[in-house]
């Protein structure tokens, strides 16, 4: 297979879903069954992406396949020389893995939706939207260029908007869509500013070219601070898309969308795009930027976990758990555990998609009931769903033998190593606390939903196991949450192909003095920008990781177990009454239940002031600006009160640039025109006198 062929196939994979979207959206009205076309396309896509992955790993495992073209050519720009904007694709190992993950989950969600969305009046459009989402997501993955990433970045935002607000008749749904888009935009502005800095400094947006220039010691605006700022600004994009604090508020609301959408977009793929983006620019992050990322990730993950503890909506719990897990990944990148972040991204994609689809299955069975307090005992009615759900829950809780155990352990080890190397111990501490809480709330969820007695007998009676097309994706995804797919040794992720040969930490390009010393490898870098870099962690970091591995593993297993135990104690065995506990810790409980009051805070500090400001400005515009420009229309109005006649004049359409002036002058002049000829002559006499006194050279 030639490289070009692989690239072409990849590009085909990219555009096929767009074709699906276009066909379905344009002709969907005429052909009600057209959604099958989209499902077919996504299936082909999955097969193609598997094919690409196989070829890539078999033939080009150490090479990145790159293709670029000039999108906009500015020619020979004065004072600057040739300038152009390129677009391009880069297919490396991470790309093909992501291709596979995205297409797989997308396909499963398509299939799941066939049943879940049955009977919806905009069935075709739903699939079209899934198509454009898949297209955009694949676009992010394949881009070799920050601008192109940004393009697709926004497009996933659009598809997310469309899908969250799919049931737009519900105000909450359209609100959520709007919120998602706008909150994401805040992050995107940061991302965009980052791009601007890079383009201004390097006149290119192709990642490898940028890295090469940084490596050559060429910093943005010749300043280390700007390099840090660039990293943080681009990270801001990820903060939005991956729902990191403080921009995470949209994700829970996004659960207004159909549940399969939540599984695909708001759990497995799109939200991971932020992590993916940070991983793409990982090599240009300075120590300061990394610290910021680590702190944000750790804090997000902690905050989301605390909120998840008390939520009652099944999807909300999962949403916060997603935020929390994304925080993990971000933290992982921040502490330098690059490969584990991506690893967790993949494992999390599978088990979280499974969890969401599972919850979808439950919700479907319960006739769109989402409140866990209305559920219970479903494991008898829905054994397959239960089984799949349980496996995934174990995975997310980090129980050994699951994929989650492997990736989470690596992240925790990385953070521990980071703590030991830099002294920032808070980050690993938060990480471990989150591990405890994750296990707790996930099992709280499982117990409340599947165990115990049904709370709502009526709904319970009508509940039933989901049909095959819904169950099948659950099973596939839960199976993918088992360790065996990733490593032969359930306790050592490093032994797995994912980490040993597929994904390797690239070498930082940041000048040594700006980077953590443990990020600098003592082994020389291979100077081929398109090749996959060897593992470049310094020996120091590798060693620290190594040391941290077992303590982290034991600690996390212990904490996970503790969490599970606590959950069972409280909800299964009812040894501790959660209500009493919440009453006792009432303010903490409320703080968590109300999501740290962040929405309220944002409303009070940003949203409402903006609205008020806009209203004030509109008023200002109507009254003052218009007024001033119109020659003080207010004064004119005052005038008009004196004379009704004047008013009719104004109403008559005579407010004008000099209404006041002309009114005043006009009236003054008109007063002179009395109609009495003798008055005129008096005026002439006075005028002559005035002229004499003005002009004559006395």
């Amino acid at each position, binding site marked *: 297979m030639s490289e070009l062929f692989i690239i072409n196939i990849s590009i085909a994979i990219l555009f096929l879903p767009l074709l699906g979207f276009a066909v379905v959206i344009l002709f969907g009205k005429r052909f009600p069954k057209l959604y099958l076309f989209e499902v077919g396309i996504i299936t082909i896509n999955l097969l193609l992406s598997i094919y690409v992955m196989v070829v890539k790993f078999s033939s080009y495992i150490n090479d990145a396949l790159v293709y670029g073209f000039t999108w906009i050519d500015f020619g020979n720009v004065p004072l600057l020389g040739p300038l152009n904007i390129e677009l391009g694709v880069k297919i490396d190992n991470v790309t093909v893995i992501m291709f596979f993950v995205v297409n797989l989950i997308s396909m499963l969600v398509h299939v799941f939706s066939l049943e879940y969305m049955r009977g919806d009046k905009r069935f075709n459009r739903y699939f079209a939207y899934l198509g454009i989402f898949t297209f955009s997501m694949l676009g992010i993955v394949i881009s070799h260029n920050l601008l192109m990433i940004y393009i697709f970045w926004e497009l996933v935002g659009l598809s997310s908007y469309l899908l969250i607000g799919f049931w737009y008749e519900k105000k909450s749904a359209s609100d959520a869509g709007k919120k998602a888009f706008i909150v994401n935009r805040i992050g995107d502005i940061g991302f965009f500013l980052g791009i601007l800095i890079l383009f201004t400094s390097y006149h290119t947006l192709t990642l490898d070219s940028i890295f090469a220039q940084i490596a050559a010691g060429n910093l943005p605006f010749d300043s280390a601070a700007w390099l840090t700022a660039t990293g943080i600004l681009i990270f801001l994009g990820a903060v939005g898309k991956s729902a990191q604090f403080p921009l995470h508020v949209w994700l829970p609301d996004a659960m207004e969308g159909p549940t399969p959408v939540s599984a695909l977009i708001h759990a497995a793929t799109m939200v991971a795009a932020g992590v993916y983006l940070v991983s793409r620019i990982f090599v240009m992050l300075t120590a300061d930027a990394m610290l910021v990322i680590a702190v944000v990730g750790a804090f997000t993950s902690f905050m989301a976990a605390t909120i998840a503890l008390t939520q009652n909506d099944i999807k909300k719990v999962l949403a916060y758990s997603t935020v929390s897990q994304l925080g993990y990944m971000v933290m992982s990148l921040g502490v330098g555990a690059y490969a584990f972040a991506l690893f967790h991204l993949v494992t999390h994609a599978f088990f979280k998609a499974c969890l969401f689809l599972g919850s979808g299955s439950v919700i479907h069975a319960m006739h769109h009931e989402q409140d866990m307090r209305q559920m219970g005992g479903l494991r008898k009615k829905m054994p397959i769903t239960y089984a799949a759900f349980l496996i995934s829950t174990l995975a997310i809780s980090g129980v050994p033998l699951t994929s989650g155990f492997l990736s989470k352990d690596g992240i925790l080890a990385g953070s521990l190593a980071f703590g030991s190397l830099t002294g920032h111990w808070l980050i690993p501490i938060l990480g471990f606390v989150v591990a405890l809480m994750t296990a707790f709330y996930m099992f709280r969820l499982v117990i409340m939903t599947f165990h115990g007695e049904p709370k709502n007998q009526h709904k319970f009676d009508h509940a039933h196991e989901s049909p095959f097309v819904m169950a099948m994706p659950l099973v596939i995804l839960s199976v993918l949450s088992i360790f065996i797919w990733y490593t032969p040794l359930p306790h050592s992720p490093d032994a797995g192909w994912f980490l040993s040969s597929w994904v390797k930490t690239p070498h930082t390009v940041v000048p040594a003095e700006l980077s953590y010393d443990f990020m600098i490898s003592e082994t020389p870098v291979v100077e081929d920008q398109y090749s996959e870099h060897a593992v470049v962690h310094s020996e120091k970091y590798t060693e620290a990781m190594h040391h941290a591995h077992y303590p982290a593993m034991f600690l996390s297993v212990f904490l996970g177990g503790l969490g599970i135990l606590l959950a069972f104690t409280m909800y299964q065995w009812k040894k501790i009454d959660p209500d009493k506990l919440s009453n006792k810790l009432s303010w903490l409980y409320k703080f968590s239940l109300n999501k740290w009051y962040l929405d309220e805070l944002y409303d009070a500090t940003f949203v409402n002031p903006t609205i008020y400001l806009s209203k004030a400005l509109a008023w200002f515009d109507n009254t003052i600006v218009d007024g001033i420009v119109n020659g003080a229309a207010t004064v004119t109005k005052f005038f008009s009160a004196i004379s009704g006649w004047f008013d009719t004049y104004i109403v008559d359409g005579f407010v004008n640039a000099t209404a006041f002036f002309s009114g005043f002058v006009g009236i003054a002049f008109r007063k002179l025109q009395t109609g009495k*000829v003798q008055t005129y002559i008096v005026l002439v006499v006075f005028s002559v006198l005035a002229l004499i006194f003005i002009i004559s050279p006395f």
Partner: protein
Amino acid sequence: MDLNGLYESIALIKPEIVISLTLLAIVLFDLILSNSKKLLPFIAATGLAVTLVIQIIELSTTGYAFSPQNATLFYGMLSVDSFGAFFKVIILVSSLLIVYFSAVTDEIKQSFDRLGEYYTLIFGMILGMMFMTSAIDLILIYLSIELLSLSSYVLAGFTKIRQRNNEASLKYIIYGAVSSGMMLFGISLIYGMAGSTNLVELNNFIQSGSINLVTFSIALILIFAGFGFKISVAPFHFWTPDVYEGAPISITAFLSVASKAAGFAVLIRFIRVGFVSYVDSDGFWRLSEVFDWQALLVIISILTMTLGNFSALWQDNLKRMLAYSSIAHAGYMLLGLAVLSNQGAFAILVYFSFYLIMNIGAFFVVMLIANKLGSENIDDYNGLGLKSPFLGVALGLFLVSLTGLPPTAGFIGKLYLFIALVDAKMIIVAVIALLNTVVSLYYYIRVLKKMYLSNPTEDTPEIKTSAMNTIFILILAVPTLVFGLYFAPVVDFAKMCISFFGV
């Protein structure tokens, strides 16, 4: 003054003589064939046409006419030159138009019996104006102004059936008499100082001798009051709106164009011949430092245009509005004089050429509408443009041109004016004038608004224009548009006419 000189002088005033003869012909015709009054307009038009032809043939003739016996210099009562000829052409053309105008006006038709007197008086006006354009002796200036004034006093009140005509007449004569009295008093002072009323001698006197500047200024301001009355600039304009509104519309139109033209001609000549010591190579007039003409003119013109425009804003009577508009235009044109350069005077010529067609056009359409409507009130114009499209478009065109928007002739007039101002670096003044233009848009556009933006009411007439009237309007409207796009002929003509005989 020997007889040869007299013959030569008479040869120089052929157009005036033809006008005088026509005047007599009208009087006689009216007396003898009093049943054929219908022919009077034709006689008048023929006389005017002949005069116009003669005038155009004589365009390049120059010379002094009626020199005094003891003149040490070669000067006279009249200075016949192309500058005067230009204004004579303006006057004659507008007179011709007014003759047709008068033939159509209902107001004049109603006074059919006195048509002879009407045309006699019109010719009295014309004669007065013709002499004004070339007079260089203050007493002749005074007398020709009086000739013009006396005729117009009567004409302003010509149709006696309407009360407002009488009132206009009375106000006009009282105001005019006082103004001319002031002017005369000023002339007497000048005479006392210079020992002569001749402008050329005045100029020599200014150049030569010591002079009491204060007295001189008072005299000039008093004289200016007379000119100001004639060209109706603030603060000597007060009669204008009342008289324009009260007078028959044909006379209003005539006053606003021809009489104003003559006033400008004489004022320009007064300053040009009496005060300019030399003209520099850039065409700027270097004045003797005896009187700050520029300050006076700038003050007056700014005051005039501001007053005219701002007062016009509030007018509901279209005639009255056009009166104020003509005041404002006088202000603009006075700016051209204030520049005190050939450029400026030239700009006035160009401006007048265009002002002539657009102003008479506007008045004519207003008259046609008033004939049908019986009113010049703007509130009766609701939707008129929609019901009578031709008149609406024509009036719209004239008003737009008066505003000075391209591509109409009015714009070119303004353009040349501003060119002169900028050339003289009078930027602030130009800005004020331009802002005034913006203000003027309101009231012109207000007519358009009424005509087009308001819906027609039941009272809105559908006015059919006769073929003749249509042609007449087209004669005025087409140049308004064409000269806006191709103005070279007019400008060339004006350029040819900017040479002054004498100093």
